[in-house]
């Protein structure tokens, strides 16, 4: 379909992103500079790609859940759990043998990673069962895991911050492949895979149908419940991968703080990306962009020397601006004002 660019659903999210980047660049010129340092790209933009990866992953999973009219507020906790499992299983400890310190891992790393992801998917399955199986309301169903999940994470880490002393594990969060940060590549891979799945198979169609009109989808012979269930499992998986990245980046797992409030940012990312929380039509690319927008904003706040107590106000202002910018009704109103700057009637 050949629609005008500003009609495209991704147009405004992209505009916002570009604007934010521009603002950043304006405040410190070094922002856009990307150099090559010991074999890999180095610079603010790279940091943003890197930093946005976990959020983007979670947002991707969340997108599908939201598309089925659901919501998953337990992702933050799941991130913490998977981080905890991985860190605990790899753990490793700093053994100092007469002066020389050496690193050992408790279980082989692949096993640890597999377990972490497995547990994460279990969490997703639990949510899915409550929602699709028992027919609980998504927000309350996932609230249960959100509350208990943190506890479980702390149980795993025993309330401590588990530091990982096993160098190979650090690659997931800090490594580079072909000059690009691994977290970014991971997110990109998941994104590509998901996109293929949604485009090449009928999954996208099914999910949207279920999200828009579950009853009709049921009559048309779609396995509505099964689809819903799997979206939650997938969301769990995404959160799991995010957990690995988070723990590997800081070389430790913090049951209490890992992925704290991530659910809000993820949902925000999804909505900024133009997917409606009422389910139905969804845009994966949109969510990815949404995540980038959020990360860029955070980065901007840090690097512009905004005093911490103002952070939230700035964030609020930007979110308001973005929302309005994306609202056709608002743009229409603006246009009207532009045409005749007299106070136009604005019925409430």
């Amino acid at each position: 379909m050949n629609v005008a660019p500003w009609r495209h659903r991704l147009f405004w999210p992209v505009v916002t992103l570009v604007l934010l980047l521009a603002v950043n660049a304006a405040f410190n010129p070094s922002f856009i500079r990307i150099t090559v340092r010991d074999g890999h790209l180095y610079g603010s933009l790279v940091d943003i790609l890197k930093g946005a990866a976990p959020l983007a992953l979670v947002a991707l999973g969340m997108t599908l859940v939201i598309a089925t009219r659901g919501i998953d507020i337990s992702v933050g906790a799941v991130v913490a759990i998977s981080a905890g499992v991985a860190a605990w299983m790899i753990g490793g400890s700093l053994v100092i043998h007469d002066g020389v310190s050496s690193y050992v891992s408790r279980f082989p790393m692949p096993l640890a990673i597999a377990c972490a992801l497995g547990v994460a998917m279990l969490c997703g399955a639990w949510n899915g069962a409550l929602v699709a199986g028992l027919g609980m309301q998504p927000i309350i169903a996932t609230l249960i895991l959100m509350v208990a999940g943190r506890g479980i994470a702390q149980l795993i880490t025993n309330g401590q911050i588990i530091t990982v002393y096993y160098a190979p594990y650090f690659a997931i969060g800090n490594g580079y492949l072909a000059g690009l940060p691994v977290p970014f590549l991971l997110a990109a891979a998941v994104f590509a895979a998901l996109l293929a799945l949604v485009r090449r198979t009928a999954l996208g169609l099914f999910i949207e149908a279920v999200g828009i009109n579950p009853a009709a989808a049921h009559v048309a012979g779609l396995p509505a419940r099964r689809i819903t269930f799997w979206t939650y499992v997938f969301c769990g998986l995404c959160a799991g991968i995010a957990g690995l990245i988070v723990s590997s980046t800081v070389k430790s797992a913090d049951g209490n703080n890992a992925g704290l409030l991530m659910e809000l940012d993820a949902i925000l990312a999804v909505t900024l990306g133009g997917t409606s929380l009422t389910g139905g039509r969804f845009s994966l690319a949109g969510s990815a962009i949404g995540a980038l927008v959020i990360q860029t904003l955070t980065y901007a706040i840090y690097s512009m020397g905004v005093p911490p107590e103002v952070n939230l106000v700035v964030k609020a202002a930007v979110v308001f601006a973005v929302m309005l910018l994306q609202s056709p009704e608002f743009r229409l109103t603006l246009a009207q004002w532009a045409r005749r700057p007299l106070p136009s009637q604005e019925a409430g």
Partner: protein
Amino acid sequence: QQKKIVLGFSQIGAESEWRTANTESIKQAAKDAGIELKFSDAQQKQENQIKAIRSFIAQKVDVIAFSPVVESGWGTVLREAKAAKIPVILTDRAVNEKDDSLWVTFMGSDFLEEGRKAGRWLVDNVKGGEVNIVELQGTVGSAPAIDRKKGFEEVIKGKPQYKIVRSQTGDFTRAKGKEVMQAFLKADPKKINVLYAHNDDMAIGAIQAIEEAGLKPGQDIKIVSIDAVKGAFEAMMAGKLNVSVECSPLLGPQLMKAVQDVVAGKTVPKRIVTEETVFPMESAAKEFPKRKY
């Protein structure tokens, strides 16, 4: 021997290793002292602490102890406790109520003082011309963040060569600490000489950021932090962290002693200070094995 003493303790939460160590120490000490402990976790919410104290009153415990999540707003519930003739002990943070008959004693560390210690170490050890400091604050509005900032600034005030060039919150976490430090290192054209982190976790996160930026933490950038948890010692032993000001979570034994005294009707001092030291890099290796948390 009379019936077991029942102590109701309302903990702020489990937001950090430090806090967990603090809880552990109290539970352990209670067991050792043969005191029955009613423990309640408030998950960082003052209202939950108030609820907990109310339920302790309802359960008619012998002594109530708690670490206030903030100084303000305890009057009402403390009066209820007083009315119910249950003595109250404050740990590791004071409350600001005019009527100090509402609690029998306050024990624990003093965030202001920790901030000052950090400042003093800096002034004594980092000399020479311009000293550009970046600060990683704790959670905005939280008492330690506010006091550790205040104390530190008190000391460097009036010493123009010490300048805080950037200050941002790292929420007391490694992840945020690292993220913020990354941004600082990229953004700041001026050279950063010193990092002051309100707790070790943020410092540890920042250290990773500094290394990734190709600098040497501890040398190119001197790092001062507070708490002195295990992680900090490892960093110091690796020469990446210059100093950590101790803030001891091990209040358990002291608390139990105070509880027993109060129940026995002895008079206890209004303020029990836990002596805390400053651990510079050098002393780390020697101290490390001794650390319990």
